[in-house]
């Protein structure tokens, strides 16, 4: 079975790193703030391991928010982005004061909206690299919050497993003087992983 060899992993990390670099520059320009995204740590995991791994990374009791977004096109799947729940109020301040994003919504709705906005930007940045790599395009579904400021144990999705694989991208990001740690999971079925490996092999071939 095809797997994420160290060379493919390195290439993937490089691609996501470039995407994140571009995204942080554009986001910084948009918000008039210095946006930092650390070099992402990439790991391939079985879907059955996802929740155990996430629990290990974010903790069992900690309140987190998870944004989910589906994408379809030449390859299809889902992206999950976890963020610490306390980030919501910081995002409101950042997007509102610095970015001028002040939609007319009640505070709780506004907090969810800014989580979705930041999440959408992060997911778009990361997926942009994939899409470029595969020389294709994908369409996105409306993102949703599947866990709202609760411990991971409250997520119903945990019980589901379609047997595919996931790429776990671990990155720390800083917005202005605030440091946050988020985790991004790209969930793909095996056939799409095979397409990804093929594209990575081509990328490596061209780079050598």
């Amino acid at each position, binding site marked *: 079975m095809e797997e994420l060899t160290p060379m493919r992993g390195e290439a993937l990390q490089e691609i996501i790193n470039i995407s994140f670099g571009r*995204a942080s520059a*554009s*986001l910084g*320009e*948009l918000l008039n703030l210095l946006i930092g995204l650390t070099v992402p740590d990439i790991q391939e995991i079985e879907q059955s391991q996802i929740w155990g791994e996430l629990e290990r990374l974010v903790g069992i009791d900690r309140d987190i928010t998870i944004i989910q977004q589906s994408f379809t096109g030449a390859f299809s799947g889902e992206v999950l982005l976890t963020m610490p729940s306390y980030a919501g109020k910081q995002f409101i301040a950042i997007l509102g004061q610095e*970015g*001028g*994003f*002040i*939609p*007319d*919504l009640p505070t709780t*709705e506004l907090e*969810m*909206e800014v989580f*979705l*906005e930041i999440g*959408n*930007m992060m997911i*778009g*940045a990361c997926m*942009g690299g994939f899409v470029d790599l595969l020389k294709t395009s994908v*369409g*996105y579904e*409306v*993102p*949703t*919050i599947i866990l709202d400021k609760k411990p991971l144990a409250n997520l119903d999705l945990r019980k589901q497993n379609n047997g595919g694989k996931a790429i776990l991208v671990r990155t720390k990001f800083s917005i202005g003087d605030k440091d946050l740690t988020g985790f991004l999971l790209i969930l793909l079925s095996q056939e799409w992983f095979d397409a990804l490996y093929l594209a990575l092999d081509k990328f490596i071939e061209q780079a050598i």
Partner: protein
Amino acid sequence: MIDFRDVIDQLTVGVIIVTRSMEVVFWNRWMEEHSRVPREEVVGKVLTEKFPALKQKGFAWKAETVFKLGNFAFFSNKHHQFLFEFQNVRYFRPSLSQMQQNVILAPLRGPDGTVDHVCVSIFDVTDAVLYEQQLVESKRKLEELSKIDELTGISNRRHLMARLSKELSHYKRSSCGFAIILLDVDHFKSVNDLRGHLCGDYVLRELASILKGQLREYDILGRYGGEEFGIVLPGATVDQAMTIAERLRSKVEKSTFEHDSDKFNITITLGIASTEFGPAMSPNDLFKIADKCLYQGKSSGRNCVVVPNGDAVQGARSGR
């Protein structure tokens, strides 16, 4: 040769294309129909000026992120309900006055790869929202029904025990104690045997109503099983529970029951348990203690209140 503008006009989705300065360059037929604004009236105009309400939604900001980042942007129905205030046209389901929408802003790139237009797609999700609302309402009703004892209309045993567990968890976190009362109708079998099961059912319903009328709003009354009732008294001390239990006993004793023109009286025996008597136990442990008291009250002649120290039998017979 197919004109793709015609195709977009046939879609049952709203499609608008705007430039970076928010000038509308395309407005499809769906938008004309729902906004009642013809194409010639909006093309060439600034969208946010033609529809000022878009400013409150943060539309310009989101469109700008699409131009700058080249990403998609969204207005989720869950948070915004709609972007354009269009009338809900469903004749049979008018509960939502406005059309519910999901909106996607997608980048359109020019030959040099830069985003020079944004395509705004408006999806009518009113049906999905209505179905979801119905589903939530059905779920709420089912949950409500699953908590209720069909005969008496008060909490059933499962819900009573769940509330007791919740109270116990709260006690463990906050040390805010509570008491429970377990009570049983004296000689209920003879009510059924002499007056029939319909009268027995009436007694249980009437008793539930009397008990409910004597309790605080936040006390939890449930049918424990058969002719047994359980009451959780949040924040109550043993003394307070005894006072409440005695009040219930006295009220029931003085009440006249009437079924098929047949007037009669009943009495009840009550046992008490409390978190005051030791470290927090399981809900079953607490009910076992209250049940033991109840059994003791039954053995001592009924129509009384018993606390767990073995000899503090109170009530009518002891002169209270």
